[in-house]
């Protein structure tokens, strides 16, 4: 059995074991399903109400994706500016740090105040959550060109654009894709956060409504959906990353091949 397969098997076993332990503990300790429903109950709820849940899933998914795309765009622009220009770095960075330290829960009410409740604050919160890791990674990638290599290229008469195009950008790609998979999960947290506060649609809203109705299995069904979507998005971007920036990880692949 290959190492890779074995690792995946263990991961699957761990998840199964986690659910089994949860189920058994609830049964043994006779925990009320108003406190902690058993996984089987949660999955049953999921199956039974899938029809009503689906539009909410779609809502969360599209607000997340729009917020993510906007966040990536903003992040790439700011990150590139900071990575290329020392002045931009010195002037913009303090502001960015300040902004990123604000808990995003605190900005949702402001977005609601400006744009009303619904999709817009969800998108904006997703954007606000996810652009920072992109900025940091792009800037780091661009700034880590070896000085010797830069000297070699400059002595050949390379312009800044030549260096950026041939060295800076390719070197930044692994950083960029690594940050994408982090950013997409952050965007997801952002949109759900906003939905719980101000929306009548989306998984976040479903969970809020369910908890005020003491429909605890539905709350957990929402949680499971969030976890599943998060994993899905993460895996999707990991696959893209592996395809586009294979050179950064090929070293290990070669040794075992």
């Amino acid at each position, binding site marked *: 059995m290959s190492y890779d397969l074995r690792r995946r098997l263990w991961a699957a076993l761990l998840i199964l074991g986690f659910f089994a332990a949860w189920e058994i503990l609830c049964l043994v300790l006779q925990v009320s399903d108003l406190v902690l429903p058993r996984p089987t109950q949660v999955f049953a709820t999921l199956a039974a109400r899938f029809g009503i849940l689906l539009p909410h899933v779609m809502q969360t998914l599209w607000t997340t994706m729009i917020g993510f795309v906007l966040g990536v765009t903003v992040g790439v622009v700011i990150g590139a500016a900071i990575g290329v220009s020392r002045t931009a770095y010195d002037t913009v960075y303090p502001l960015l740090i300040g902004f990123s330290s604000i808990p995003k829960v605190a900005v949702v009410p402001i977005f609601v105040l400006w744009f009303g409740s619904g999709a817009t604050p969800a998108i904006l919160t997703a954007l606000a959550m996810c652009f920072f890791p992109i900025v940091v990674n792009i800037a780091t990638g661009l700034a880590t060109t*070896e000085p*010797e*290599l830069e*000297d*070699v*290229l*400059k*002595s*050949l*008469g*390379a312009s800044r654009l*030549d260096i950026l195009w*041939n*060295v800076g950008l*390719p*070197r930044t790609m692994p950083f960029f894709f690594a940050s994408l998979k982090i950013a997409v999960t952050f965007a997801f947290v952002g949109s759900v956060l906003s939905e719980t506060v101000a929306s009548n649609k989306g998984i976040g809203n479903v969970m809020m409504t369910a908890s005020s109705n003491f429909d605890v299995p539905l709350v957990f069904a929402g949680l499971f959906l969030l976890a599943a979507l998060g994993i899905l998005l993460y895996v999707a971007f990991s696959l893209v990353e592996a395809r586009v*920036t294979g*050179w*950064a990880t*090929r*070293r290990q692949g*070669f040794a075992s091949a």
Partner: protein
Amino acid sequence: MSRSHAIPQGHPSIAPSIAVELSQAAVSFGKPGKTVAALQETNLRIAAGEFVALVGPSGCGKSTILRLTAGLLNPTRGAVIVGGREVGAKALRIGMAFQNPTMLPWLTIERNVMLPLKIVRPFRSDYRAKRRTEFRDRVHALLADVGLDKFANHYPWQLSGGMLQRANLCRALIHEPSLLLLDEPFGALDQFTREELWGTMQSLWLKRKPTVLLITHDLKEAGFLASRICVMSARPGRIIDDSAVDFPRPRTVDMTFDADFVALNQRLRDLIIDARSDAAIQGA
């Protein structure tokens, strides 16, 4: 040898042309009012096709001279003239190699070596059209000269340190620079690989005859490769000794054990030790 042989008359083109000239070039770093001298007023002339090695105590300004020559740094005072023009003006044909081979990990060795052709005029305008034909053949021929032809399609991490340094030399030479600047290119290699690469470097030079300025800490390396050795004083540096090395070529590692060679080594060593202790006395 007759005198008339040494001085040809009526043939100015045979007189060696000057490839590099530093005249009273000095460099200091730091803010105005709080400057630190890195290089004293230095004069250095390198004839076209010469192989000059620059040795001296650490921190004396060797890399600074190299960066001046490459046009990466402007002298605080004095002038630096390369190929008849003051540097800073673009379009010098220079090749450079450092101790760190800095191959790009996402490109094959072939594409790494080809990189200068993508940047230097006039090659860059033909890059797209010729990268799979003429340029490729050219890279392969050069790689064959250093024994790397089998590795053209490998990635940098598949090569050893010595092999990467060979590829680095190829990248510095692919655009046929008339001036090659080397800053401790073999400094990170083990003794045996280093000696092997001296041989490679020597045959590359004998074949193409570029002007070379080599910085090294290894006096044996300087004696093996150079046709002239300049010794620098401690920081702020200046050239305190300048002597020709005329052992016959091609030189071999065995020759480095000859009495003449050992004597040269000894003399250089004493010069540098003196330079270092002078600096220590001044500092005290």
